[in-house]
């Protein structure tokens, strides 16, 4: 608790035209921990993540990385800080193999020729570091991989670059039970390797299985960010659906304000959230 969070967002506001999607949101992620980001559809999860990733500029608020204020205007800025996002649709090239996908856009070259041995070595080391045992050949085409293996490749691609913060958008949404377990194990492994992992999920089982902290958004406000061991399943569900649970969460007045403030735009907010998710 004494350590500086690697990523800290303070008082973030973000509007799309008349619709305010994020209001005074505070969010932190610590190295070596999994921070779950939960919330209902349209609560602002995707927007917050896209602000962190540099896809959307923030209207106001502070973006602190490793305790120092930084400005992030583009995905490249975020990458250079060491922030990587693994999107829900993964965006892998099916016709390329695992190594090619992991190095896509950042290929190693010797002169003008691709340095295949070095790339193979780095890819293999990264997979070993993550204790990935499910991939037979790193020269397998992604088209021949299962959903869980693809998720693994996408995550490995994100951590290949000495990233410090990895954000996973619903990594288990499309997976079966066994593959979900594998991916969660990998998520835990990332944190144990010292990365700050942000996990967006709708699945409470997943959240309680791996998360150290749970941050809950409610209608564009951060209802609470708490240690996973301090809350119960039903408390988190209450936070998601009502914005408060007992002493936790937004105060009654704030909940009402959030409700009223966004009430007339509810449909709009939800639509935006869905659109963001689809992008």
């Amino acid at each position, binding site marked *: 608790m004494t350590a500086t969070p690697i990523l800290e967002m303070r008082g973030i506001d973000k509007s799309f035209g008349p619709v305010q999607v994020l209001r005074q949101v505070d969010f932190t992620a610590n190295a070596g921990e999994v921070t779950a980001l939960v919330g209902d559809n349209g609560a602002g999860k995707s927007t917050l993540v896209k602000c962190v990733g540099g896809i959307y500029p923030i209207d106001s608020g502070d973006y602190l990385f490793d305790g120092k204020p930084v400005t992030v205007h583009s995905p490249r800025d975020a990458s250079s800080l060491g922030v990587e996002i693994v999107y829900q649709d993964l965006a*892998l090239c099916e016709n390329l193999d695992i190594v090619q996908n992991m190095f896509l856009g950042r*290929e190693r070259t010797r002169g003008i020729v691709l340095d295949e041995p070095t790339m193979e070595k780095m890819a293999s080391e990264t997979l070993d570091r993550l204790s990935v045992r499910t991939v037979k050949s790193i020269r397998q085409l992604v088209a*021949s991989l299962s959903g869980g293996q693809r998720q693994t490749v996408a995550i490995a691609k994100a951590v290949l670059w000495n990233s410090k913060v990895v954000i996973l958008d619903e990594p288990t949404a499309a997976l079966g039970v066994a593959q979900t377990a594998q991916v969660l194990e990998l998520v835990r492994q990332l944190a144990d390797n010292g990365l700050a992992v942000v996990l967006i999920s709708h699945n409470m089982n997943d959240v309680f299985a791996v998360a150290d902290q749970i941050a809950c958004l409610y209608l564009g406000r951060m209802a609470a960010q708490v240690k996973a061991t301090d809350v119960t399943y039903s408390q988190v569900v209450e936070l998601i659906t009502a914005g408060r649970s007992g002493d936790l969460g937004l105060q009654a007045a704030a909940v009402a304000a959030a409700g009223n403030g966004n009430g007339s735009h509810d449909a709009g907010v939800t639509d935006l959230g869905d659109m963001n998710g689809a992008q």
Partner: protein
Amino acid sequence: MTETGTEAATPPPAGAPQPSRPDTGGEPGRGRRVLPPAVARLAYTNTFWIFLVLVALVVFFGAMQPNFISAVSLRSLAADTAPLLLIAVGMTYVIISAGIDLSVGSVLIFSGVIAAKTMLWLGGDGAHPDAGATSAGWTVTLAGCLAGMLGGLAWGLLNGFMVARMKIPALIATLGTLGMALGATYLITGGTDVRGIPLNFARTVGFGLVAGVPWLVIIAVLVTVLLGVVLAATRFGSHTYAIGSNAEAARRVGIRVDRHLIKVYGISGLLAGIAGCLSLAHFTTTTISGHTADNLSAIAAVVLGGASLFGGSGTVTGSAVGLLVPAVLQSGFVTIQVNPYWQYLAVGAVLVLAVYVDQLRRKARSAGR
């Protein structure tokens, strides 16, 4: 990263049961198999099979008529195929990027005409206008070729701009330039072929040999090898595959997709331009009425060579082999005195079959996830 002997070099054949599922444990990380990319790619494409077909054809025609495998026969086969080889290489890039270029034949003709006109303009002999530029030197020849190649490049870049920036489907954009390049050619020439190119050019590049190999073939093969290496082993090539496979993924990792596509179409146009110059030297005249089916021959070669029209796969080697199959069929039918028109029928059937196999493989792949 250990190679585990012969088994490692044999990837599972398409459609075979999937490799062991993750929940069965798999093998430890150190046992992860690494295939040389070339081997892996080869086995996943039709290239290998079409190569076997080519060998079988050569052996068959050779057995039927030993003259078939003679230096003269092979030399003329290779020289006739050289310009089309360049077109097919350009088409390979375009098809891998999930596009198509129908304009190549017209661009070839256009470039030939521009090259010839430039040569006549610079090297024409005022005293003997009928002689054209036959006695002109190499400077004139080079200037002409350069002009022709630039003409080809310009059409290619226009194609790329229309596809990448104006978002016009490649089929339509290049159909448009097919018409425009042909129309421009007719306007420039008035419909008659341009004659009287420098004799130097025709004698060396057109029919000249180096150690028994035609210059045409040497030039075409050098360019092909160069672009084959660029495609297989450089960042540019890798990005071409990525864009054809998933343009959105390429964009997200920071590849400038639009700019890359313009370059790809530019390469196709430039190669058509070079092919136009080679063809000009070979026939000593522009061939305005020929080449209308070059685009389809090139597409057929690329697809036979294992590329997918959906983009993301294909190799220059494959396309070269795919190009030789119809050429060998044609000259083989002539040698064994079968009506060579059978060639069109045979190639058409093989082409449809090749695409059908590609479809089956895709289906097996997505079903076996």
